[in-house]
């Protein structure tokens, strides 16, 4: 039976290659999933190409692209050393959007936005700050009447790019965190205290249902579901709102994006400090397996469109940061390097 499947697979594959490419499959990060959903819907109308993106997590996307099980992957994190080693050829990382992670909380009766520092967030998630009226919080929020309420930290129980950006930030601002929990970006870590909820919905649900709860979610999700979230102090000492796209853009502008497109912008000198890139991953040399030039072309067209103003128009509506300025130049240059067995595409 396997033979039969294989035979029919080959048959269909050869049939498909003869036709115009109308399907592209991707998988990976759930962080940009709402954005990509809108983009790909529009792309289907505009270009007639169906893009199927399965939101399964950055790690799953990276694994899929390494296994060449998909045409492209989405990821909020660069390759780990092991992943880079497993990849059979060079994979290009095209930055596609910026996202921010915000601390959301549930304190009954509170109407003003709370202020946090990175160190405070780390101490909360390390279990060092236990009550909402503890001194470190009170010191930052002098005009707010804080209740004598236990803090319940809530984290993502599934592996996630959101966690990756959040813990990367905590590792940069807290030596304790870096020593005991995570040294850098990592999609699932062992949180010393708190409870885990699955997906954004799980975290948000837990926070909403738990008086005294605090969690971290993407700002997009927080806004769409009208969650309370706090401001975070950046290096300049300013308390920044992650929902302000200008601040997120500022964070990326503060750093020069390297030529490979990969950079961590958490704890940036200006802008919102818990921000990160999300990337589209594709093989630099598109000629592999029985991949046709038409397929390669279709993919590059898609990514180009996503980087174009037509693709980037959805960012504002959904509260993702655009890729523009220097980052956009880098992104386009990376995409221009994608080829088909040495042949340039376009």
């Amino acid at each position, binding site marked *: 039976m396997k033979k039969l499947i294989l035979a029919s697979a080959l048959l269909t594959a050869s049939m498909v290659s003869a036709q115009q490419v109308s399907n592209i499959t991707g998988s990976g990060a759930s962080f940009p999933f709402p954005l990509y959903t809108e983009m790909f819907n529009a792309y289907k109308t505009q270009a007639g190409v169906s893009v199927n993106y399965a939101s399964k997590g950055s790690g799953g996307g990276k694994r899929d692209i390494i296994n060449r099980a998909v045409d492209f992957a989405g990821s909020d994190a660069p390759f*780990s050393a092991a992943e880079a080693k497993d990849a059979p050829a060079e994979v290009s990382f095209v930055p596609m959007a910026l996202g921010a992670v915000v601390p959301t909380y549930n304190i009954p009766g509170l109407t003003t936005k709370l202020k946090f520092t990175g160190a405070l967030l780390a101490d909360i998630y390390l279990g060092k700050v236990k009550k909402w009226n503890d001194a470190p919080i009170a010191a930052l929020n002098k005009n707010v009447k804080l209740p004598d309420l236990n803090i*319940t930290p809530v984290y993502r129980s*599934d592996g996630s790019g959101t966690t990756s950006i959040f813990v990367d930030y905590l590792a940069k601002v807290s030596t304790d965190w870096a020593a005991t929990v995570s*040294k850098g970006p*990592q999609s699932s870590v*062992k949180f010393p205290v708190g409870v885990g909820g699955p997906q954004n919905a799980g975290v948000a*649900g837990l926070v909403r*249902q738990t008086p005294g709860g605090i969690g971290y979610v993407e700002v997009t999700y927080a806004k769409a579901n009208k969650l309370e979230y706090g401001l975070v102090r950046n290096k300049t000492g300013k308390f920044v709102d992650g929902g302000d796209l200008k601040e997120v853009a500022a964070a990326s502008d503060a750093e020069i994006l390297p030529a490979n497109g990969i950079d961590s912008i958490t704890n940036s000198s200006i802008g919102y400090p818990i921000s990160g890139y999300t990337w589209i991953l594709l093989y630099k040399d598109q000629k592999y397996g029985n991949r046709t030039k038409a397929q390669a072309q279709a993919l590059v067209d898609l990514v180009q469109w996503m980087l174009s103003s037509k693709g980037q128009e959805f960012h504002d509506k959904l509260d993702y940061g655009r890729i523009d300025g220097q980052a956009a130049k880098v992104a386009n240059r990376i995409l221009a390097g994608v080829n088909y067995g040495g042949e340039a595409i376009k």
Partner: protein
Amino acid sequence: MTTDVKRPRSMTSAADTTFKNIIISLASLVLVAVFLYGVVLIAGGFPAFAREGFGFIFGLDWNPGTEKFQALPFIAGSFLTGFGALIIAVPLSVAAALFIVEYAPKWLAVPVGYMIEMLAAIPSVVYGLWGIFVLIPAVRSFQSWLVGVTGLDWTPTGIGLMSAILVLAVMVIPYVCAIARDVIQLVPNDQREAAYALGATKWEVIRYGILPYARAGILGGVILGLGRAIGETLAVTMVIGNASEIAKNLFSSTATMSSLIASQFGEAGGVQLNALIALGFLLLVFSVIVNLIARVVITKLTPVGTRL
């Protein structure tokens, strides 16, 4: 008188040999499938086994940050939630089975039986939804009440072992109940009549005339329920909290083998991926053992009228 012309080969015994071979090949695919399960999981999980040794099974530290992968918390989680669910589900299932077979009039027994089976028709992901939006708040209220009464320094969250146990209990009830019902129905009627003839009350009839006969079969159903509970994934993942540690108390977050696979597989790579596949292998082994024990118990011990 007859026109016995030569018959096509398909109408001879020779064709039977071909038929037999086809049937055996089809049946052998079952063996191939089981073999492939073993090969894929062992091959995929081996690096993790090799790295951790017996620590994989007996160690407590699962931490992707330090690349330490030891699975005891999840093995414990699977059995804790499984047995916990049974503690709740078994008495209720047996009660419901007795109600349907022995107590309820037919007009009530039939719809009640249908409704209990409907519980088995609800997809796991729906249980997950229900768990998050209904069960967890309910458990949290209970926790708050408990904290209020005892003054314990807990933060009620609703998420954790207890919620997983409850959701699993609801999910295994239809399985245990169906088997309990079947075996109680199989108890010969003269058992009941003999007991009644001695002047026993209904409960005494059940206690001394029926339960001793049905006990083995019910036990088989209970073990089968344990197998279901261990393998259940999505619903548990949503409510258990998925903390990589053994539950400290009834309400703390923990994880089961299947919930950990579901929540980490998507993001895993490298050794973590191997470790999750190895965990899949352990899960396979445990659930297969549990299921086979259940089958043996049911088939060997239930011939009607045999006492344990």
